């Protein structure tokens, strides 16, 4: 979308307008966003509506937590088509034993390590979106990750960054827990604040703070990168006092995903203005010796997710878990898998629990890969509208219809 339209919407009071739009969306927003046959209607096992679900409308004051699984998560062994004989024959030695997976219906089971996720599923707090990808999944980590994070024609900004550009001016609107700002959280005029899991407080000297404030004062003569440096320090001054006591009290211990999500939880409980959090879990590029490595990673994800969603209780917090691609169906000779195409998205917390999307057929592989049946932008659109309460088109140009995920 051009700059001028974005600025027009800002001046028009975009937030108010988009809340009205989102309330009209409702359940008529189709689940069937892919080219395949009718998708499975969302089903949660059990007959009661999950706590926190809101199928008749959308929450526009929700919080989104984005977890990027870096490396290409093997979706086929995460949400496993256990009732399929083809799965067993094609996967060979990497096929998981159905007796060890956790049944989630429709012929699928969760990887054995996903114990807490299974509990979330039973409580209606887990959703699975099958067959997610995009046209042009070319098995390159870096290109595919850029596409997922940019979600647009230019790789200069990310989708959350563009949401930041239209959503206001508070430097805490989006927070990355980790080390640097990923592309997804970089906008044109501002980017997410970054908070580490460790202590986050300015050195004590009050004179220093004064000098730093002068240092980062507006200076039109600065070159663009110099201005960016000044901006990062100015943002630090703006957020550190708010964040410092919260992080100091946080139960985060260590630097693993559980610690990062514990920091997110503390920040959410402090009722800060933050609407989007983002963090990452690395290591999913399992070209060799996959079984043990994949199990360890899914266990780390499962532990962190279970603890986090449990702690969030009734708060409208939605977790998005995605990866840059799935992996090839057949194993390689190193007891691992090579890069594939479509993957599976997990959503946890305040979600419309159950199956979404359209499982790619194992007898319809594309060059040995699972075919894409759902465009990833329809997932993003569903979250932009259902969690953040903004029209998908504010951020995503020419995207397919949003999925009703919340």
């Amino acid at each position: 979308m051009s700059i001028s339209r974005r600025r027009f919407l800002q001046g028009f009071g975009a937030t108010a307008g988009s809340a009205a739009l989102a309330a009209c969306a409702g359940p008529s927003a189709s689940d069937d966003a892919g080219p395949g046959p009718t998708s499975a209607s969302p089903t949660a096992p059990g007959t009661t509506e999950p706590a926190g679900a809101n199928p008749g409308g959308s929450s526009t004051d929700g919080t989104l937590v984005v977890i990027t699984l870096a490396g290409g998560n093997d979706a086929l062994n995460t949400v496993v088509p256990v009732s399929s004989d083809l799965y067993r024959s094609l996967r060979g030695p990497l096929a998981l034993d159905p007796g060890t997976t956790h049944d989630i219906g429709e012929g699928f089971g969760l990887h054995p390590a996903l114990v807490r996720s299974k509990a979330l599923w039973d409580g209606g707090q887990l959703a699975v979106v099958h067959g997610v990808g995009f046209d042009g999944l070319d098995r390159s980590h870096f290109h595919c990750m850029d596409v997922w994070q940019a979600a647009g024609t230019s790789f200069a900004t990310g989708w959350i960054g563009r949401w930041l550009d239209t959503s206001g001016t508070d430097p805490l609107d989006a927070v990355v827990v980790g080390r640097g700002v990923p592309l997804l959280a970089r906008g044109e005029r501002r980017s997410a604040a970054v908070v580490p899991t460790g202590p986050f407080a300015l050195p004590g000297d009050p004179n220093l703070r004064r000098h730093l404030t002068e240092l980062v004062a507006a200076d039109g003569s600065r070159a663009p990168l110099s201005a960016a440096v000044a901006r990062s320090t100015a943002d630090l001054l703006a957020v550190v006092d708010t964040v410092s006591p919260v992080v100091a009290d946080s139960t985060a211990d260590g630097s693993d995903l559980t610690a990062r999500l514990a920091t997110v939880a503390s920040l959410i409980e402090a009722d800060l203005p933050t609407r989007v959090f983002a963090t990452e879990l690395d290591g999913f590029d399992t070209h060799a010796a996959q079984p043990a490595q994949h199990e360890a990673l899914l266990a780390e994800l499962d532990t962190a997710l279970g603890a986090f969603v449990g702690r969030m209780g009734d708060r409208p917090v939605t977790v998005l878990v995605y990866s840059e691609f799935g992996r090839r169906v057949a194993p390689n000779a190193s007891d691992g898998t090579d890069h594939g195409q479509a993957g599976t998205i997990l959503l946890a917390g305040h979600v419309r629990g159950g199956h979404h999307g359209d499982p790619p057929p194992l007898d319809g592989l594309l060059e040995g890969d699972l075919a894409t049946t759902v465009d990833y932008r329809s997932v993003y659109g569903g979250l932009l509208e259902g969690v953040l309460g903004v029209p998908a088109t504010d951020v995503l140009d020419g995207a397919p219809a949003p999925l009703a995920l919340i």
Partner: protein
Amino acid sequence: MPPTSTADEERRDVAHLLRRAGFGATAAAVDALARDGYEAAVDAVCQPLTSTVADPGADAVALPVFDTAGYLAARDGTPAERRAANLQAGNEQRALVLWSIERMAGADHPLRDKLALLWHDHFATSIEKVRIAELMYIQYRTLLDLGGGRFDDLVHAIARDPAMLIWLDGRESSATAPNENFSRELLELFTLGHQSAAARSVDGDHDDHGGGVGGVGDHGTTQPYTETDVAEAARALTGWTIDPGGAGAVLRPARFDSGTKRVLGTTGPLGLDEIVSITTSNPACAPHVVARLWSRLARPAGPQDEVVVELAERYASDLDSAALLRSLFLHPEFRSDATRTGLVKTPVEYVVGIHRTLGTTPTVASLLVLRGLGQIPFAPPDVSGWTANEGWLSTASALLRLQFAVALDPGAALDEIRSAPPQDRPAAVARLLGVDAWGPATTEALQAAADDPRGLLTVALVAPEHVLN
């Protein structure tokens, strides 16, 4: 203060050269090198790339002691032995990182290690998976020794490098089921580049605030290689393993796919040597490699940018990396304002730069801030290397730089600031840190802090002009 004469301009350019072609230098070193003008300075800086002239400063740093045999034996032993092995691996890694940082801080000819670091970023291999510090040292030695030579010789050596064989699973790859990891990254990252990278500058186009992307659109350029090329090259790269006797990499004929392959238009019973020759002689290779080097030495650019195309034309003919660097530093664009303000210091450049200008020795504190900022030598986050520019800027990194600036021991440098009258201290600290000039806001902040030399130094260390390279 902006230069007021040609001599001042030349000195400013030499300071810029010493930052980019190294890790910065003391004011006295800049003065000395600037005496004979910029071109002579380029010659002096580049000459050690193609000579065996000793580097007393770098060589004075003691090599870490590796006990690889002991580590491997313990790794397969009892739980207690395995724990000891992990501890040993960690110690050797730390020693190796400190060794490399001390070399960079103390080198008389820092371009060698600077180029080795850039190649390390290019062929990004991580000790996190390789585990054996000695193998990472061997790879770094290869980058040091061959980095200024022909690019294809360098790729030949890296393709056989034991650390690389572990990192990208080359040693797992056999004729019965080839592993595509190394093959893909060889084409996508090391030699030809990916088509989407050709359509944009490195790390997005921060110069363009008009909402569009600079350069040719994705749909206008063709991919230099296909998935079939990746798969076929993988077949040609099968069979290599690491000789347990310590002779490096060895080809095992039984694991090698000796059949006919077709890669990038060449057909035959191709092996590793042929794949390296085919990829490095492909027209996409020179622009891709030149774009990466220009982007890290000058400012972000893609393979189709004018300067890159110009430099790549010569590079394509001889793949001579030392000659490329010389042409790059002599190119008028290298000394433009856009280039001078075009790069953020990487964490290593920032920390080592402070050590060089203040004359302090790297310590464990230096390693800790490198870890916090996200750049530990020998441990890049993934095979595409480290981020750049805006990627290094965040609230978290701003805080880390500030904490480092507050905590460091400036040694004798503080006296230099103190000895100047307060109104001259901002200029004194600019000269001390090798910064050309402070902008208006920075000048005001420094003048306000001038009565407190240590506080003044802290503010200067985190000022945008110093955080930029």
